[in-house]
């Protein structure tokens, strides 16, 4: 029952955006360019050096492709969570609490920004190109990693954003804190974690599991040893990390809702 309600809500949101075709096309292009800028920056860096953190250009581009696809998918599905402070401020969130539906699904389906498909297109394009041109020794396991990595990466990012946006239940203006996690993760996951200092790296490996979005799956695909000497099992651990992250985000969201007291006016 509830599923069909969401299906109808999402379908209506999508229809409403396609009504203005010209404006929609421009929005998609802006998203496309926005995502491609970071790729351009990586390519500029490689005009100056031959390798970055021990990885050559095609390998870093593969990581970018994985990261950008995951980011695009996550942005398309849960990007709406960024609007939480707005919903709380206007009191619209209180309305959601009263409806007999889950608060998170309601928030996420309140506006599905289809234009974000532009980011997915860039990421998927680069990823396919990378997988086709890199000399990958294909095994059934690697095929599985290549197929699953964008999805598990998206789940990890989505879980991080939901958890980060929960600060809005406690802070009045938590938007910027949350957006540093959202856009910071897009930037950070596009590069090999070897370039970060030990502090930042530990934070990205374990506290915020960004390394499992692109870095470890890329190691699995490339079949090369980890320059950091981390255990080989980690490169196949993304699905497990994604599941744990999703559960953790759900728990944080619940405790946030329980603490939520409204804006008071």
């Amino acid at each position, binding site marked *: 029952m509830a599923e069909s309600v969401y299906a109808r809500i999402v379908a209506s949101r999508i229809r409403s955006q396609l009504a203005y075709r010209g404006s929609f096309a421009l929005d998609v292009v*802006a998203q496309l360019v926005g995502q491609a800028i970071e790729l351009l920056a990586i390519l500029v860096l490689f005009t100056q050096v031959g390798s970055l953190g021990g990885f050559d250009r095609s390998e870093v581009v593969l990581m970018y492709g994985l990261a950008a696809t995951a980011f695009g998918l996550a942005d398309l599905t849960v990007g709406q969570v960024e609007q939480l402070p707005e919903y709380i401020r206007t009191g619209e969130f209180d309305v959601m609490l009263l409806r007999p539906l889950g608060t998170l699904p309601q928030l996420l389906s309140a506006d599905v920004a289809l234009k974000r498909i532009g980011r997915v297109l860039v990421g998927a394009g680069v990823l396919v190109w990378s997988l086709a041109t890199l000399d990958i020794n294909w095994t059934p396991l690697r095929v599985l990693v290549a197929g699953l990595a964008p999805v598990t990466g998206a789940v990890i990012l989505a879980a991080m954003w939901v958890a980060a946006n929960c600060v809005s239940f406690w802070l*009045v203006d938590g938007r910027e804190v949350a957006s540093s996690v959202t856009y910071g993760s897009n930037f950070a996951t596009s590069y090999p974690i070897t*370039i970060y200092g030990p502090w930042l790296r530990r934070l990205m490996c374990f506290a915020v599991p960004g390394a499992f979005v692109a870095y470890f799956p890329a190691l699995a695909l490339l079949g090369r040893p980890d320059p950091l000497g981390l255990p080989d099992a980690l490169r196949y651990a993304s699905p497990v990390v994604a599941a744990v992250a999703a559960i953790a985000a759900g728990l944080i969201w619940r405790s946030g809702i329980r603490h939520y007291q409204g804006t008071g006016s």
Partner: protein
Amino acid sequence: MLSPYPELVAAGFRRYASYRQAALAGLSTNVVFGLLRAAVLTAVLAERGTVGGYDLSVAVTYVWLGQGLLTVVDLWSDRELSQRIRTGDVVVDLGRPWDLQAAMLATDLGRAGNAVIMRLVPPMLFGMVFFPFRFPAEAITWALFAVSAVLAVVVSFGVRFLLNLSAFWLLDARGVLAVWGTVGGLLTGLILPLSWYPARAQAVLAWTPFPALFQTPIDVFTERGSPVTLLAHQLVWAVILLALGRVALTRGARRLVVNGG
């Protein structure tokens, strides 16, 4: 009659000074991105000691100045005028006994002045404490940097003013502003130092106003190139853009049709 413009500078300053918690939260974004960008540049320099004249200390200074100047120069957030054009509220602005462009520039300078305290100084201090920050060798550089930062705000205002005015013709300037939001960072030297770009791209960019927004004030601070040339480039573009803005405003206002008169 007293000139309203100094008052407008003060009003712009006060308007943004009231959002202290938001400024603090915004700082967290600047610091996170500063750490990430510094890591990328450091990794590049680990492969090759200097790139495009940047050694490690210049590179980290570039990063923290850039993160600090981000809100001062303000590439992104200014879309109020385009919305007022779309709704027609701009009629009220045009009817007031002031020069609209000068009034908006005054308010923007006030905003930038507040951002210097809330958003430029903290990331700079962060860079000075935790990174091998490069302090200017000459005392005069601090003063030149201040001038260059003001000019950067004026040039940025000039660009934003023109983009917002496009709403007179397009009705909705969102698309134009969105494109500027994405390419602006790359063209102005915010994302990567422009001296790391291929020579041909650098040569083209030198003829545009874009470096004046971020790369030039940073170059002045890190004492790269003659400050006179750098400031002159900014000044010339500030004048050109403000003049273009004037012409565009007059032309656009002529297109404005208001019901009833």
